[in-house]
């Protein structure tokens, strides 16, 4: 016999609904299960006491009083109070539909993400950043090594690599300016010039480009620089170009083009 069943039997017993033969049997079985007959008697006493307790019937007057109170409450504060609460609750405003609730849910997600990110262990993040920095340093080191290579095509590849925006820093800029001014191969110098031109919003790059004019001997570079200076509308370039056309040995078409450039710049 399970405890639940015992409990039910005990309660039936207390209610006194059981036939007397069954009552005796249950009492015997309960006793066998170890229930103290004294306790059972106590339960019986308690049951009887509860039965004797009189529950007062609600009077007519009470019902009337309740209704009066309810009506009064409806008339005065209660309604406006609940409405005020609704008005204060931004999620229950009629006419807005479920949008605010969605917005709230979404902002919870965002806040959750942010908190999660903030709680991510710092060492993890700094290690990632360190790895990135290391990678960049390594790439820069490879770039610089290639720029020093005796092979012009290696240097060319390096300059192409520097076109990648992520690779841009002071070291790369300086190496490109060096290449523009003194690389042994004209094609490497030209490509360095193009890459630098893309960064000409940096005043240091502009300065370097202007300074580079006087260092160039190849007509290829002089013409390319003239194009760039025109595109940048760089007035400081007029002076070095003027010096250049003073040289009687200058190629005719280079001279023509430089004269045109100077005219447009000034």
């Amino acid at each position, binding site marked *: 016999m399970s405890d639940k069943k015992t409990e039910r039997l005990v309660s039936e017993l207390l209610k006194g609904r059981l036939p007397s033969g069954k009552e005796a049997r249950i009492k015997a079985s309960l006793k066998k299960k170890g229930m103290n007959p004294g306790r059972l008697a106590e339960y019986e006493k308690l049951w009887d006491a509860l039965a004797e307790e009189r529950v007062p019937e609600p009077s007519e007057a009470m019902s009337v009083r309740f209704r009066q109170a309810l009506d009064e409450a409806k008339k005065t504060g209660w309604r406006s109070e609940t409405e005020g609460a609704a008005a204060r609750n931004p999620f229950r405003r009629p006419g807005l539909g479920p949008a605010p609730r969605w917005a709230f849910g979404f902002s919870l997600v965002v806040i959750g993400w942010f908190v999660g990110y903030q709680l991510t262990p710092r060492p993890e993040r700094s290690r990632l950043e360190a790895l990135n920095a290391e990678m960049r340093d390594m790439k820069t080191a490879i770039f610089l090594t290639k720029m020093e290579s005796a*092979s*012009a*095509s290696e240097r*060319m*590849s390096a300059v*192409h690599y520097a076109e990648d*925006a992520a690779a841009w820093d002071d070291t790369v800029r300086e190496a490109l300016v060096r290449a523009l001014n003194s690389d042994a*191969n*004209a*094609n*490497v110098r*030209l*490509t360095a010039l*193009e890459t630098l*031109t*893309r*960064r*000409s*919003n940096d005043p240091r790059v502009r300065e370097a480009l202007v300074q580079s004019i006087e260092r160039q001997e*190849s*007509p*290829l570079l002089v*013409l390319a620089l003239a*194009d*760039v200076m025109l*595109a*940048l*509308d760089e007035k400081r370039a007029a002076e070095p170009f003027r010096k250049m056309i003073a040289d009687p040995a200058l*190629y005719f*078409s*280079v001279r023509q083009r430089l004269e045109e450039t100077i005219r447009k710049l000034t």
Partner: protein
Amino acid sequence: MSIRTVVLIAAAVAFLAPAVPGQNPPSEQITIPLSLPGQPGTLIVPHGRGSVIVTGYDGAAVIVKASPAGPAGGDADQGARGLAWVATGETRLSAMEDGNTVTVITNSASKTIDLRILVPRRFNLKLSVKDNGRIEVDGVTGEMEINNLNGSVRLDRVTGAALVNTVDGDIVCRFDRIPPGLPLAFTSVYGKIDVTFPSDADLTIRMKTDQGSIFSDFDIAVGPRKSLSEPAEKAGGRRVTLEDWTSGRIGKGGNDVRLQSYEGNIYIRKSKAGRP
């Protein structure tokens, strides 16, 4: 390991042709053995006046033949009629080898001297000519850095990287094969640029000509014009765009190829013969 340096003075092996009028001018020839035979080497020729003609062959040494370009004034000199030209051993051909890098020097700064050079097929070339000559290369695999100020450049049946520039001369190049990753660049002021690539080449091309036009029988997927400008959000000053560069792709795109001539046309041809 000690670095082996061989300096060969041409006089020791010069073949002086008999001074007979109308015959070829006397030439000098030297053979330069390599310290690492069978491995790729580099040939450096900083030449003044005269042509440099380099041909790949199946040998293991570099062979240089230098010929003075004939008597000054040539056949037009009436005063020299009936007289023999007395060769004066003026090529002063010398060569230096160091770890498979061969440098060839002549008296070409003051005299016009033509060089014919045989190199092993896998060789890098660094050739430059200032005046009065052309540069030709045939059947060589390697990196080629070629600079001819006033004359033309012709590369035939070559494989590898090539950085070629001239001021006056035309550039004509025919590639057998272009190994991936190697850059190609051809730049001239007045010359035309005529390049032939294998029909299955994958190239990323940037080209520009001011006075000339560009022609090709490749399907070049011309991309948006590459503007030489800062990203807009960073632009504090004015936006800079150099409109005249055209970027395109041949095949899947790949090796960076730069073609620029100020006054010449640019021809980009598909190799008809296919792969050899």
